[in-house]
Structures are given as C-alpha cells and as structure tokens.
C-alpha cells in the first residue's frame, strides 16, 4: 500500500474517533437531555415507578439530594409523551423539590424558596464593559460569562444568593443579590498583583516574595500562534533568553534556546534543563497548546535546586489543568500557508553561460531563445524546488475540562499537519493529554499528568536528506535541465532535484513519546506535607530511508535501491520525595523543603540496511537481498541521584531570605569526583513596605530589591568519558575474508568532573501608577569554571580525546522588562518590551593557552569568535598587486581579487607578507550580544490585536560554499554576485564581490571580513487580529464564546544580510550546503468554547 494513503487513513480514523468523542460529550449535555422525548406508560403511577421508566428510557440515573420527596406519591393528572424537561417539571409540580441535570444524572434538589432571574453589566473602573467575566451563583453550578457589552443574565437564582464575579487580573468580587433583579458590578484591577503565583523549582511562590530571577510567560502569550514546536514559543517574550530558529524543516524546526548567554563551549552544551510538570524532558515534547505557564529560572538562586544540570538555566513548563465547574469544551484551530522568508535569486542560463565562459555565442543564443529547452534550458532549480509543496499547515486542538469540589480533569487532543514548501514533505503530530487532580481526603491529594504524542515525518530524498537536496539545488546552474521532453532528466553529478523529487526515494521518521507522572501529597500535620512522585518518560522512534533505483538517462542510473531502518528507544525514570513545612510565628514566616530524587536513563538503538529490492514499492527489510545486509546497534546509560533542600524565611513580608542546596551524584564521573554540592543564597527587601516609603511615596505600588549568589553544575557530557575503551568495527580483509578488528580510538580523561557555574544577580522590581507601569531590571555576572573541553590536540596524538576540565567563561549582562497598560479612549492598550545585553568572554582555555584557532576560542573574546584575515577591498590592477604586501593566495592577474591586510609579522610589525600566522585575528562573532522583543496588544469591543516583535543583534555570520561563492565547485551564480562583482571595465576596489572567474576553490576565499556580514535582525514574529462574535449571536448556537482570528508568524524581517538569505537560518560555511529555509506563515482560525 502506498505510504501516503496509509497515513491519510490513520488520520481519518483518528479524526473519526475525535468526532465521536465530541458528539458523545455533547449528548450528555443537560440542554440536549432535557429535550429527550419520554413516554410514561401505565395508570396510577407513583413517582418511583415513573422515575424507573425515565431511568430506563434515558439511560440516566436519578439521584436524591433532597430526601424529603416521597417516592410513593401518586401522580396526579395525566402524563404521557413529552420532553424529559417538561415531564420532570410536571412530576415534581406538587412537591417541594426541583431537579437539575448533571451529566448523566438527574438530581432531585430542594425547591428554592423564590427563584428569579438576574441580569446586569460588568465594567472596569473606567466604566468600560468587560467581556468574558465569569459570573457564578455561589455554591451552585449556575453561572455564565459576560458578552461583548459586558452584560450577563442568569435564570433560576434563589434568593438569598451571592454572585461571585471573577476575571484574570482583576480582584474577584462577591455580591449579595438581595431582592434585586438587576445589578451592575464594577471590577477593580488586581493592582497589587499580590496573589500572582510563579512556578519555581519543586513548588510555587508568590511573585512578590521571589528573591531569585525568574522570567515568566503565560498561555495568553502563546495562544493561537502557529507554533509548531514549543521551543519557538519563547522568542521575543522573555528577557535574558536568546531564541533562534535555524531551520524550517517540518518536524525539525524547533528553536535553539540560550539563557543568559553561552556559559560553556564544551560538549556539555548550552541547552537549559527543561522540566515538564516537574519531569525532565525535551521542550519540544510538549504541545504548545497545552502550556499554561513557562518559568525561566535564570539565576543560581532559583536554579540551584536543580544542581548539576542547571548551569544553563532551567525552564519549567506547567501544562493546563482542569478547574472545578461544569464541563467546558474548547476547540481551537487554524489553517494557513507557509512560504520561505527569503529566496536567493540566480542568474538565467544565458547570463550564467556568458559569465562562466567556455560557451559559444550560438550556444548562449540558444539558451536565450529557449528553442531547445532540453539541451539549452533555463531552470531555476532552487526556486522551483521550494515551491513544489503547498506549505499548507493546520492545527486542531480540543480540550475538555471540568470537575467538582474534589476532582478536576482536563483532557486534550491535538492535531498538527505541516506541509513544507517542498512537495512530499509532511509532518504530522497527534497529541493527547490528561491531567487529573483529586482531593482524596482533606489532607491527601493526588495529581496525575499523562501526555503523549505520535509524530510522523515524510520527506523526499536524494542521495542524502531533503535538506541536502535543497543545498545542492543552490549549486545547480540554470543551464542544467530538469525533466526533458523525452522523459529523461538533467543532472550535475548526483544532484538533480527534479529527478529525485520524482523518484520513489523517501525519508520517513516516526516517533512516539509518553511522559507520565503521578504525585501524592499528604499533609501529615498542619503545615507539614510529605509527597512522593514517580515519573516516566519513554520515547521510541523508527526512521526509514529508502533510496530507489533511478534512471536519469541512458548514461546514468542510480542504484541499486536500498533501505536503511534505524529504530531505538530511550527511557528516563524519575523517583522523587519531598517534605515541606510551613510555619508562621508572629511576623516570622518559614518554609522548609527537603527532597530526594533519582533518575536513571537508558537508550538503545538498532540500525539495519539491505539493498537490491525487487522493485521500488517494497519498504521492509525482508524484501531486500541478503548479500549486502548490515546491522548495527548500541546503547548507553546514565544515572543521577540527588538530595536537596530549601529554606525560605521572611519577616513581615518585608525582608525575604532564601537558601538552597543540592547534593548531586552522577554515573558519568569517576568515583572520587562523583558527588558535588551546589548551594545558593538570596535575599529581598520590599522597600515599598517600609513606612517611610509608604507614607512619602505612595505612588510607588511596589519596590523590591533582590540579590542572589549561587553555584550550578553541568554534567551533560558523554556517558563514559573516564573509562578506557577500545572501539570495535575496525575490520580488515585477509585472503578475501573479513577479519574483525578493534582499535583504541579515544584517550579518556580519568579525572573528569563537572563544570561549575557561579552566578551573582542583583535585581529591582517596581511598579507605579497603580501598577499600570511595572519594570524589572536585573544585572548578572555568571562565571563557568572547569569547562569540559575537548581541547585542541595535535593530530600527532593519533586519537580522539575526551573532555578535560580546563576552561573558564564569563557572561555579564543586564535585562529589562517593562510592562505598561492603559486605555486610550475605550481601547485597552498593552505594551511590554524586553531587552537583554550579554557580554560573553572566554577567560581561560587551560594550559595557559591563549587561543584555540581550530575551535574558534580566544581568551578575552566571546565564544563563537570568527578568526580570519581583514580584507582591504580588492586589488585594482597588477601594479596594485605588486606594490601591496604579498598575499597568501595567488591573486588574479590584473586585479579583482581580495586584498588581505598585512597586520603583523615575526617582529610584531607588518612584514610585507600576509600569512596565516601573523595576519589573522578575531574579526567578528556569531553569538548575539543583544536580544530583544516587544508585545503590543490592543482590545476594543470585540476586536483584539497583538503584535510580537523579536530581534537579535550584535553578531555576524560568514557564508561559504555554494551560498557565498559564484561558480564554486561547478556551482551557480547569484544576482548580487553578478551585479556587484569587480570587473575590468569597472575595477571598483570596494565592489561587494571579487572578479568573477570560471572556477573557484574554497581556499581562495579563506575566512575574512570580506565574506562576513552583520546578521542582526528585527522580525515581526507574530501578528494577530481577532474578533469575538457578540454573545447575542453566539448564544443562538449555544456557544459560550466564539472568536475568529488571523495570525501570521515570521511576517517581515529587517536586516542587512546577504540578499535572499535569512540571517536567522543556520548555514554551514564549510563545503556542506545542507539547509532548510525557515518559513513565514499566514493563518486563519477560530476559537470556540461551550
């Protein structure tokens, strides 16, 4: 069976199931149930017998809350066929009881003394109508939300009753109705924000009491954005966090996240630790729709409770949970189309032939007139390839949530379908989640989180991955044909995107992920809680690469066909216990936390391949020949055990202290270096609580000074760095028979230990103008020591090397977050910009080494330094060449080649000779210094608008290979190169491109300022315009809320990079051109809630 069809079927089945569940839940809705037809049979019926019949006919059960009802009461009058609602009303007419429908239960309740309707309008302090405010009759399920005009209406309200009115960001209000039928309510903004709670390590804390540096992002900032991977979500939203998306490849288009700069240059990496509902995972494992909040723990005070993995900061993600109340169903979707953000432009074939040389005028004319497209074509390979796909993307997300006093749940289903701009490239993801909370007893609580996804990526394939095909489409000149009229294909070596796209070759990657956790917490005595948690993360994957046989033309056939299957799984088991104690003695508040956790990880993989399949429609190994079958497999393990604790103390909410410590042991280090202690301390002073400020500067709503210091670790290196191992598989053949061989391939470091990062932070939070304007400023100084570093070793060693604790890196910087909201007329406006500046510096490389050119590391320079020659324009002519310092590369005769500066020489002064030893220096840096973002929102009546800007600045990128050099290795030429090149007619020494010659070798263009560009950019990351349909209309469809919106991602960017190339996209400067352009997307969608 065709693969695509199989996928479509799977999807169809899942959609059907989702629909079925949807209908099922709808049918249990009270509204529908009431309209069900009932026929009561018999005479002289009692209530009991009538109820029995109703139970039978409706499949519902009748429960009693009011036991005063006499079931043997005879029914007076006649009841025959009618709607259930009317039947029940009729039956209970002469009783003191009423009924309500809860799910599949008809509950007999006490009849209220007086029942009436109540309506009103809810406005804010400025008198502006508030939409979506929740209004609930206290102690009942009877509730509603306000419409676009701020109006609400409730029926069947008993008297006396109290209304509870609540809205996020506003102080909740309880109002006794008394005898009124109309009531207008004004809600005050929760200006003090006193109750705002932030998720921190192993718990939550009131934001007002935080002494560490924690950035937060809420679900509201992420809603309805066409985010395909959760890692993209943080871009532009949090200060101190640098987010960049290097690839648009569906399924692999996540962003790279760095918190407070690059702390290390080691294999331990700069990725933050991510915990999803308290369990370690990959940020892209979580469905962006499921995120309730993201906390970014930036300093050591907040992160040190995660010890040896926290050096790069910690990201805590909490997923949405159910809330008590009636069942709420919400459905969100969007559909949209992607296109590449930037596309380089290449020369037409006749222009190519003219510039390249070696073509006769007659041939060039043929290219131009297009009369013989088979032999003299003009095919823009890259542009064509990047428009073969629809770019269609859609997402559907369905949530069911609800609960009662003791239990609540949220069940979610999601589907994402992402088609790339290259045909046959499709990524699909199904998500499923269930969060369940239960108060088993007054002092015993259960929390369960289950999350899973299934992913399926299909890609076309050439001799390599799709992104290699895109890379080589850059290389192919327009003079090479695509499909010819006789059905054969044009090609350059093995590169022929059109041909490969039509072949049966494919990549299919499938993975399934499960993350589940269960936590029980038991309040032993008041204030003392013991909890245990077990979590399990499991991931498995099967990747298939199929390479078909393919006939390009009579001369070239690719084959034999082959299949490569790679599958594996990995699991992480977490066990954790916590003991927490809260105590208040007078004005002294204490919280003490002690905990234990252990994690063990194991992964295994297998890979197998065969070739010579009988045809190109069989994609299982057994169908292939056994002659060239291969199998590989391996695995690895690590384990971590930790003890940790925290003490919080505050005096009168004014003076805040916190201390954390974690004691970690890891299998990755030898016994004597196995355990490490990671402490931190922090303090806060809420100046605004001091009488002198309260009395003299009451316009200051909040002002808090924070200081912190702590130590963190990074153990994220290979699993067995300290063990001497001999690699297998170094086989050889003797006498025609394979002889197994082994070899010492790596020199281990028997004394390896973790990297240690110390962070100091000083911060100020304040808000003024009744909290309309709030601001957080942080300055930090972060130093990483003992950096695990596979330092450059001379090849004379003949071995790979393990990592050594050698280096030191420092990051200093500051972060500012502003929040301002106000009204302009009746338009609510919000502006929240953030800005971070980070100065990164390599302090030490070990062994007194001042530079490691091979790794681009230089003491005193940032990580990611670019080292090369300084270009001094282009040579004008022979005389210029002769009079200038001698060059390391032979310049073209007559000028036009790059002129590199003579910086120094053996005696420390220019020596008239440009060479690699004395004339290269640090010329730039690929690590951004600035990252910034801003959110702008505006709401007016039903309309809402939001704009998210994101930018990175203060860094450079080099381009190389086919992207930067015209005619490189048989490659193409871009418009900017042709138009900007040095020519003999116009020997401009400042031309943007050197003289164009027929063939280019990489070594002629070594790393230099010439091919380096400022890569800073400012991007309109997201633009959203929505409209909430007025309640009056939505109510007709029995919906609580209906919003339609447009949302666009990556819409525009401002930059000074190479024409046609997006600076955010990752490109290799080496001779390896793989890449997948990032995309912009325009989407339209709806949010429905009922």
């Amino acid at each position, binding site marked *: 069976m065709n693969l695509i069809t199989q996928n479509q079927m799977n999807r169809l089945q899942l959609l059907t199931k989702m629909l079925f569940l949807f209908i099922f839940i709808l049918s249990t809705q009270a509204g529908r149930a009431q309209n069900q037809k009932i026929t009561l049979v018999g005479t002289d019926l009692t209530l009991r017998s009538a109820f029995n019949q109703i139970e039978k006919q409706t499949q519902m059960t009748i429960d009693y809350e009011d036991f005063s009802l006499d079931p043997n009461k005879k029914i007076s009058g006649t009841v025959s066929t009618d709607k259930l609602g009317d039947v029940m009303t009729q039956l209970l007419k002469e009783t003191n009881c009423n009924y309500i429908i809860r799910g599949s239960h008809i509950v007999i309740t006490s009849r209220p003394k007086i029942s009436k309707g109540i309506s009103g309008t809810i406005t804010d302090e400025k008198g502006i109508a508030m939409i979506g405010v929740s209004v609930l009759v206290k102690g009942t399920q009877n509730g509603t939300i306000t419409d676009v005009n701020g109006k609400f209406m409730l029926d069947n309200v008993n008297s006396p009753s109290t209304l509870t009115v609540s809205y996020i960001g506003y102080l909740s209000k309880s109002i006794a109705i008394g005898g009124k039928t109309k009531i207008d309510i004004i809600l005050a903004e929760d200006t003090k924000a006193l109750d705002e709670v932030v998720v921190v390590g192993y718990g939550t804390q009131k934001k007002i009491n935080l002494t560490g540096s924690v950035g937060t992002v809420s679900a509201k900032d992420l809603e309805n954005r066409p985010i395909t991977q959760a890692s993209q979500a943080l871009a532009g939203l949090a200060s101190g966090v640098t987010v960049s998306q290097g690839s648009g490849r569906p399924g692999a288009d996540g962003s790279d996240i760095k918190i407070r700069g690059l702390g290390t240059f080691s294999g331990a990496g700069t990725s933050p630790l991510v915990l999803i509902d308290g369990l370690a995972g990959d940020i892209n494992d979580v469905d962006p729709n499921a995120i309730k909040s993201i906390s970014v723990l930036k300093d050591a005070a907040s992160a040190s409770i995660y010890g040896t993995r926290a050096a790069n900061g910690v990201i805590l993600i909490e997923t949405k949970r159910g809330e008590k109340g009636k069942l709420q169903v919400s459905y969100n979707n969007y559909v949209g189309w992607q296109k590449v953000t930037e596309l380089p432009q290449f020369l037409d074939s006749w222009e190519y032939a003219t510039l390249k040389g070696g073509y006769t005028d007659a041939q060039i004319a043929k290219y131009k007139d297009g009369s013989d497209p088979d*032999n003299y074509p003009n095919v823009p390979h890259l542009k064509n390839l990047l428009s073969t796909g629809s770019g269609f993307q859609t997402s559907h997300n369905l949530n069911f949530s609800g609960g009662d006093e003791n239990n609540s749940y949220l069940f979610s289903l999601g589907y994402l379908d992402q088609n790339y701009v290259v045909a046959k490239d499709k990524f699909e993801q199904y998500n499923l989640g269930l969060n369940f909370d*239960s108060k*088993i007893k007054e002092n015993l609580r259960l929390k369960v989180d289950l999350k899973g996804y299934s992913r399926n990526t299909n890609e076309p394939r050439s001799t390599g991955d799709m992104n290699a095909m895109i890379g080589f489409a850059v290389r192919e000149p327009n003079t090479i044909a695509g499909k010819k009229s006789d059905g054969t294909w044009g090609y350059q070596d093995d590169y022929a995107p059109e041909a490969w796209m039509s072949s049966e070759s494919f990549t299919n990657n499938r993975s399934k992920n499960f993350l589940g956790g269960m936590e*029980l917490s*038991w309040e032993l005595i008041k204030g003392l809680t013991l909890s*245990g*948690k077990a979590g399990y993360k499991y991931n498995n994957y099967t990747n298939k690469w199929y390479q078909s046989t393919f006939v390009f*033309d009579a*001369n*070239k*056939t690719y*084959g*034999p066909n082959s299949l490569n299957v790679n599958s594996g799984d990995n699991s992480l088991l977490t*066990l*954790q*216990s916590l003991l927490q104690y809260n105590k208040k003695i007078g004005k002294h508040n204490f919280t003490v936390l002690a905990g*234990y956790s252990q994690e063990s990880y194991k992964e295994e993989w297998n890979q197998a391949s065969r*070739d010579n399949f009988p045809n190109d429609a069989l994609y299982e190994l057994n169908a292939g020949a056994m002659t*060239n079958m*291969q199998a590989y497999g*391996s695995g690895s393990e690590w*384990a971590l*055990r930790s*003890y940790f604790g925290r003490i919080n103390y505050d005096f009168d909410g004014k003076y805040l202290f916190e201390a954390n410590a974690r004691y970690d042991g*890891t*299998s990755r280090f030898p016994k004597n270096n196995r355990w490490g202690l990671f402490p931190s301390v922090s303090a806060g002073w809420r100046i605004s609580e001091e009488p002198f400020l309260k009395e003299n500067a009451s316009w200051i709503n909040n002002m808090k000074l924070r200081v912190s210091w702590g130590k963190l670790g990074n153990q994220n290196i290979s*699993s*067995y760095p300290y063990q*001497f*191992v*001999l*690699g297998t*598989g*170094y086989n*050889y*053949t*003797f*006498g*025609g028979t394979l002889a197994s*061989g*082994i*070899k*010492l391939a790596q*020199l281990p470091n028997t004394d390896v230990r973790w990297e240690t990062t110390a962070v100091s932070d000083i911060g100020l939070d304040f808000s003024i103008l009744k909290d309309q304007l709030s601001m957080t400023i942080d300055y930090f100084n972060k130093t990483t020591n003992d950096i695990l570093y596979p330092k*450059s*070793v*001379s*090849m*004379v*060693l*003949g*071995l790979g090397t393990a990592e050594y604790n050698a280096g030191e890196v420092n990051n200093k910087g500051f972060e500012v977050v502003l929040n301002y909201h106000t009204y302009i007329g009746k338009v609510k406006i919000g502006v929240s910009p953030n800005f971070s500046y980070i100065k990164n510096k390599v302090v030490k490389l070990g062994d007194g080494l001042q530079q490691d*050119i*091979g790794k681009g590391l230089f003491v005193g320079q940032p990580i990611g330094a670019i080292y090369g020659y300084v270009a001094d324009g282009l040579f004008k002519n022979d005389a210029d060449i002769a009079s200038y310092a001698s060059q390391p*590369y*032979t310049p073209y005769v007559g000028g036009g080649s790059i002129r590199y500066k003579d910086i120094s020489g053996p005696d420390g002064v220019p020596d008239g000779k440009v060479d*690699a030893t004395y004339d290269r220096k640090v010329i730039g840096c690929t690590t951004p210094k600035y990252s910034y973002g801003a959110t702008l929102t505006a709401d007016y009546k039903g309309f809402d608008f939001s704009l998210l800007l994101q930018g990175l600045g203060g860094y450079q990128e080099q381009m190389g290979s086919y992207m930067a050099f015209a005619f490189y290795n*048989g490659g193409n030429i871009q418009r900017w190169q042709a138009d900007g090149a040095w020519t003999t007619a116009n020997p401009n020494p400042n031309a943007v491109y050197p003289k164009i010659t027929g063939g280019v*070798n990489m*070594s002629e263009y070594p790393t230099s300022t010439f091919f380096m560009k400022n890569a800073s950019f400012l991007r309109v990351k997201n633009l959203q315009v929505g409209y909430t349909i007025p309640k009056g209309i939505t109510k007709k469809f029995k919906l609580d809320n209906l919003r339609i919106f447009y949302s666009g991602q990556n819409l525009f960017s401002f930059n000074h990079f190479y024409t046609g190339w997006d600076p955010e996209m990752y490109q290799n400067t080496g001779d390896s051109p793989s890449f997948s352009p990032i995309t912009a997307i325009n989407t339209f969608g709806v949010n429905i809630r009922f």
Partner: protein
Amino acid sequence: MKNKYFNSIIPKIWIVLVLLGVVNSGCNDNLFDKQPLDSVSDATFWKTESDATLALSGCYRSRNKDWGEWTSDDFWTPWSLVQMDIMAGNGAEKEGNPDKITDGTLNSTNGMISDYWGHSYKRITACNNFLEHIDQITMDASKKSIMVAEVRTIRAFEYFNMAFYFGDVPLIQKVLTVGEANSVTRAPRADVWAFAETELKESAAALPLTRPDAENGRITEGAALAILGRLQMAEQKWTAAVATYKTIIDNNTYIIDPKFRELFWEANEQNKEFILTSQYKEDVYQQVVLQFIYPEMFNGWHQFSPYNELVKDFECTDGKTIDVSPLYDKNNPYNNRDPRLDASVLIPDRGKFRGVTYTTNPTSGDADKFGKYPVWSGYCISKFMDEGFNGNLMNYGGNWPIIRYAEVLLSYLESKLESGATIDQTLLDQTINKVRGRAAVNMPAVTITDPTELRKIVRRERRVEFAWEGLRYYDILRWGIAADVLNGTYHGMKLTNDPANYTTYPVDAEGYFVMGKTRAFKKGVNELWPIPQSERDINKNLTQNTGY
C-alpha cells in the same frame, strides 16, 4: 464510589513511592555502575591471541569504522594514490584539489596536506598502542614476533612517507599524552629514515617469505624489503638499494604476470605480482575509487582527466618514442602505440568498456561531452575499470596494489644504473624487458646500455607502467625534476587535424586541446609539503618548512 476506589489503592501507591524514594535511596550504589554497552574495556583486553589478532586488524584498517574508504589522503588507499599521480602532473582532478599541491598555491592551510598528516599519525598510534601492549599477551612466540614485525613494517612505511613528503616530522614511538602530543618537536628527516630503515630490516628478518591463502594481504618479508628499497632509493643509497632488491629477486617469490589490463581487476586480486596491497571486500569493506575514475557514461563521476603529456610518453609498438617512430601518424596519434596506453587512458571514440565506445562529442547529449567541465581533457582513466564488476561503484571489493614486482625489477635496474655499475643485456632482460615484455604488453626489448639514454628509458618505463598507481610523484621528487615537469602548459585530447582553422576550443599547433598553465611548482619550496597550520596553531614547537 470513586472515592472508595481511591481510598483502597492510593495508600498502597503512596507507600511504594515513599519506599522507592526515601528508603531505597540510602544504600545501593550500583545505580552509578554504568559501563559502555558496545565497546571493549581496556582492562579486560590484551589477554589472548585472539585479542592480538583483533588489534592487528585494527592496524591494517586505515579508516574510520563507519566510513569505509570515504575519506582520502593517506599513503595506502586507492583514491589517495590516484590523487598523488594528479599532483605529479599526469592529469587533472575535477575539483582541482590535488592539482593545488603543485600549482604554486600550496599553503599550510591546505586540507589534503593536513589529512595526510593526521591519517598517518592515526595509524602510527594504532601501531604504537599494539606494540606497547603485545607483551602482555601470552601466545605462541613465533606468531607473536611475526605480528610485531608486521606492525613495525606498517609504521615504518608511514614514517618513510611522512619524512619523504614533509621532511622533518615528529618521530613518535609510543602512545602520547595530550601534553606530549602538543609539544613534540620535529625529528630530522635523516633520523626518521634511519629509524624506519632499522625497523624494516629487523622486521624483514622476522617475516615469512610467503603466506597461506587465508593470510593473503598480510605483510611478508618481500613487502618490508620493497618498502626498504623505496626508502634507500629516496636516500640515493644505490648500493644498499641494489642489495635489497636483489634479495627480493633472489627469493624468487614473485613473478611478472602475463596480463596487464586484467591484472587490476578483482578476479586477479590475488596474484604473485602484488607485493604490498590494500585489501577490500565487497559489502563489508569497500573501496570507492571506481566511482571517481569511471566516466559519467558508465555511472562514474569522471573525476580525473589525464593530460596529453602522459599520453605522449607511451611509445609506439616498435619501441620508439612518437617523435622518432615511423609508425606514428600525427593524424591518428593513438594507433600503433604501447598497449598500456589503452589500458591506462580511456581515449574518446576509441576506448571501449563492456563493448561500448567512450565518446565525448560536445554537440551530442553525451554524458561526458567535451567542455562540460573546463578541467576535462577529454581523456579519462581506463586502468582499474573492471569488466567483471557490475555492482555499485562505491561498493567495490578489488584489492589495490601499492607495490608490484614490476617496481622491484625497474627499481633494481635503476639502482644498478645509478650506482655506477655497468649495465649489460642480461640485466636488461632480467628487469625492464620482463616488465615490458609480458605477454599482454609485448613491447620490443630494450637494448641500450648507455647510462644517459637508459636513464631516460627507465624513467619513461616507470611512468607508463605505473600510471595512476601513485608512484609518479615519488619518482619526480627524488629525481629532482618536479620543478621542470610541473611547470608549463598542459594539454588534453586531440580535437582537430586542422588546427589552423579550428576555433571552437583553444588548440595547439598539433590540434590538441590547450588546458592552460595548470602547474607552477615552486622550486626550492614545493619539494616538501608545509607542516599543517592547524598543527602549528596548537604546538608552537613545530617549525615550518622553507617558503611556507
């Protein structure tokens, strides 16, 4: 109901959690006891003979375990050896990489040079590690001493080459620490060669003359001596070289195979002419050079293009060079030539493979059409194109000769000649005439004994006999003629017999395609390769060769 269920089960779960979490935490430290799951620990290795055999294979194996032959640039692998002939000016490479070594632009950041350096030290380290540990193993002493001699020979071959191409190089005889590796100094070339010479002599004495079929490919006495001969010739120790080569000849273990074209095919990979080989096997340890060699019309990449300067050196069938032979027809220059021409160079409209004629017509749709790449000469390599192989060109299992007996005979003659000994017809018949007289070549016997004339003949014979086998660069460097032969304009195929009226492509007076001045060997500089800049960036003790 619900609550009842939870009431019963939850406390149990809770107990389990607490037990796992708190109680279990105190004791068992085997949580941290994690060992590699797919590698052999050094602690348990180096015990038995089979461990020695495993480690021995690791010394022969040149490449990363997962990549087969897919990286080039060392002194053992086919792709590298063909590229060394390109450096020597026998032809051009499509991406111009080996050409760069001798076109005047060679500098210390050249990637190929640093690969030769790195790959050599990788193998040297494998050998050093073997030699450091072999004594720990209890096994048959004679088997052990043979293994040791093999590994010492492999290492000596690396050192001979390293010192030949780089001059002074670090001479490493044990597994270094990082600190040592980063501070080593260069040993004088003479010391390195003296070391290699001793190693080879001692090894030769310990090695067997021949091997059983199952051990074919393992180093023999002949191989160690043939390497020694190359070294002695490079040192111009002619008398010593004569003695070394004479030992090989007198041992009477090798022959000149009557075949020539087929000699380089997989079917004949085990034959008595091959002395030192790199060994391959389809599907399990493949070589990839065929992918590079074959023209595009036979699914190759047509990576290499022979120059006409090589073609011209093949004599006519009468044994005379083309400038004097009456058999030479300048309008049909490829007729009546040494059969080794067609067996080495694929000539358009003439060379055949699997019955199909190789064509390069620029106006047709030919895959190899002339002019498709500016560096294409029209010629392609025909040597090693294996009629018997129909598989994937990157999955070829044919062994590759590094040293053949033909080299021993020609080197013996050259050493005799250069040592000043008188040359007689008997010597010629025992050496050069055996090589050119093999049945498949059958060129007339050489009868000239005049040293000056004979020197020219021997040198020409080496060029045509060993084309594409990686020997030419060694030869022109030690003859000191690199600057002379690697300087000037190079040519491709014959495009016209009427050059005066031909305008499509540039041609010379005889109608051969002019490829331009593609080499500019810097005399006094390029005789040695530069020490890689990346190495000098790390190790300040490494000096640079003159001129870089």
